[in-house]
């Protein structure tokens, strides 16, 4: 396999990991446009572990993911009482704060970022992580917690009346989502070999969001499909590569216009 395409596939795997991680909070009804922030945290922390402390990648990923998860829990609590557009804005704000933080944080190079990262991310590793995440989501689906998530997504008041502890479900979903994003960030850093705050800004969050939206939130395969489209399309069509943002922006608009029902409510029937 040519190393160019191997690289593409690795990116595909990373995007899948990121998309699957965002899928979880969205399936609890929490729209987050700040996932780039968690990705950034995971990336930087993982790099610190591998580069400064000399740890192997899996260990670095674990720490990066955990720190990101902690951040997720921290954001998850204020996010509890906030819904809809306010949550989107809150998460956008969070993403920006993280970016600005790293922009000014001296030990990690501020705007110049960190370069010369060792290439430790391999295709088998990425595939393994993505597969594990997918397996987790599948296990959640047919279980008590999976039902609780769907209930919370549809109608929080009714879900709570059924005895679902909203705090626990929402914060955990958020934290787990952040964990996944952290893993994605760590994997990304050791493949892109160079990270700086600009790579984890709003566009990154929007891109991950787009992937999930494109694939639809009806099933956990959605993010996989979305990641495939978003990663592979630019490779196959030159103009998509040059006008990436425009194409993706147009796709978002088209999604919103043509299949809005597929955006955020699984299997919802047309209004009677």
């Amino acid at each position, binding site marked *: 396999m040519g190393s160019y395409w191997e690289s593409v596939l690795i990116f595909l795997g990373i995007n899948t990991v990121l998309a699957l991680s965002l899928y979880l909070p969205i399936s609890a009804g929490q*729209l987050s*446009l700040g996932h780039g922030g968690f990705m950034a945290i995971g990336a930087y922390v993982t790099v610190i572990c591998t580069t400064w402390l000399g740890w192997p990648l899996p260990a670095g990923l674990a720490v990066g993911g955990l720190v990101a998860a902690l951040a997720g829990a921290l954001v998850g609590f*204020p996010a509890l*009482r*906030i*819904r*809809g*557009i*306010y949550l*989107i*804005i*809150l998460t*956008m*704000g*969070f993403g*920006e*704060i993280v970016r*600005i*933080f790293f*922009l*000014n944080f001296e030990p990690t190079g501020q705007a110049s970022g960190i370069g010369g990262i060792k290439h430790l991310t391999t295709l088998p590793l990425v595939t393994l992580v993505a597969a594990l995440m997918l397996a987790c989501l599948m296990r959640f689906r047919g279980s008590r917690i999976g039902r609780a998530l769907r209930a919370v997504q549809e109608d929080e008041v009714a879900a709570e009346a059924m005895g679902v502890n909203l705090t626990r479900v929402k914060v955990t979903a958020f934290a787990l989502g952040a964990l996944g994003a952290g893993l994605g960030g760590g994997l990304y850093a050791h493949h892109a070999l160079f990270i700086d705050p600009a790579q984890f*800004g*709003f*566009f990154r969050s*929007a891109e991950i*969001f*787009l992937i999930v*939206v494109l694939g639809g939130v009806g099933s956990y395969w959605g993010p996989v499909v979305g990641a495939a489209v978003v990663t592979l399309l630019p490779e196959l069509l030159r103009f998509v590569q040059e*006008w*990436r*943002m*425009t194409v*993706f*922006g*147009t*796709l*978002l*608009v*088209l*999604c*919103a*216009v043509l299949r*809005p*029902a597929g*955006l*955020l*409510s699984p299997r919802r029937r047309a*209004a009677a």
Partner: protein
Amino acid sequence: MLLQQLVNGLMLGSTYSLIAIGYALIFGVLGLVHLAHGEVFMMGALIGLQLVLWLHAGPAVALVGALLGTAVLGIIIELTAFRPIRARHGPIFAPMVSTIGVGLILQEVATKAFGGEQVGFPHRLEPVTWRLGPITISSVQLLILGVSLALMVALHLWVTRTRMGMAMRASAESTLTARLLGISTDRVILVTFAVASALAGAAGVLVGLSFNAISPFMGIDMGVKGLAIMLLGGLGNIYGAMVGGLLLGAIEVLSVAYLASSYRDAFVFAVMILILIFRPQGLFGVGQVR
């Protein structure tokens, strides 16, 4: 010193107000947060810049040109990205997702068309500075403040005195009732978008003049700040947006003077998040938040 900072803050804040008003107008009439509004602001600056470069025009022409250009842009956005969704009775979140898409498109188009570098307005005005007691004001600042205030006053008059303005307020209160009264809400929405975008475009030129740093990326920051102001002032509340903008400008300038300036932007976001958590209806908003 403090007074000087306050004055600077007001200058900055008045441009923020223009953007926040745009958000408030659109939210008021459509119940929609226009996440691409910051990009419209950016396009205004770029249009103004192009006019100055090509036609060697003065700031006044740049301003008017940007106003008209962004108004047209706003209309196009409404027709292509939002009206179709309303026509199909999409869910509430669909338009917002659409705005993100529009923002991305505008960003990239601007980057491709104008390059990714920061540019400044070529100076045609010799900046004159005046001293008023302890305060120093430059002509550019005065221009900004003057134009902003003029626009705000014009908006106020328009909204309270003209038929279209009142139709807009009626639609903001209740689209159904407005329609029953014979108001063409589609037309009102178009006008709302045009006005809101025009204000943003004007702000773009004004900010470009004052900071001399026009780039395709200036919209993101401004967009979020404008959003924060709208939240601060109460969603859909134009006057809250006006006051909020001035307030934010003052806060920002003061925080730069007394805190580390590089974390200034983070400070704004932090404030915004605090508002969202503790008082989502803003300082002037009323009623329950959905």
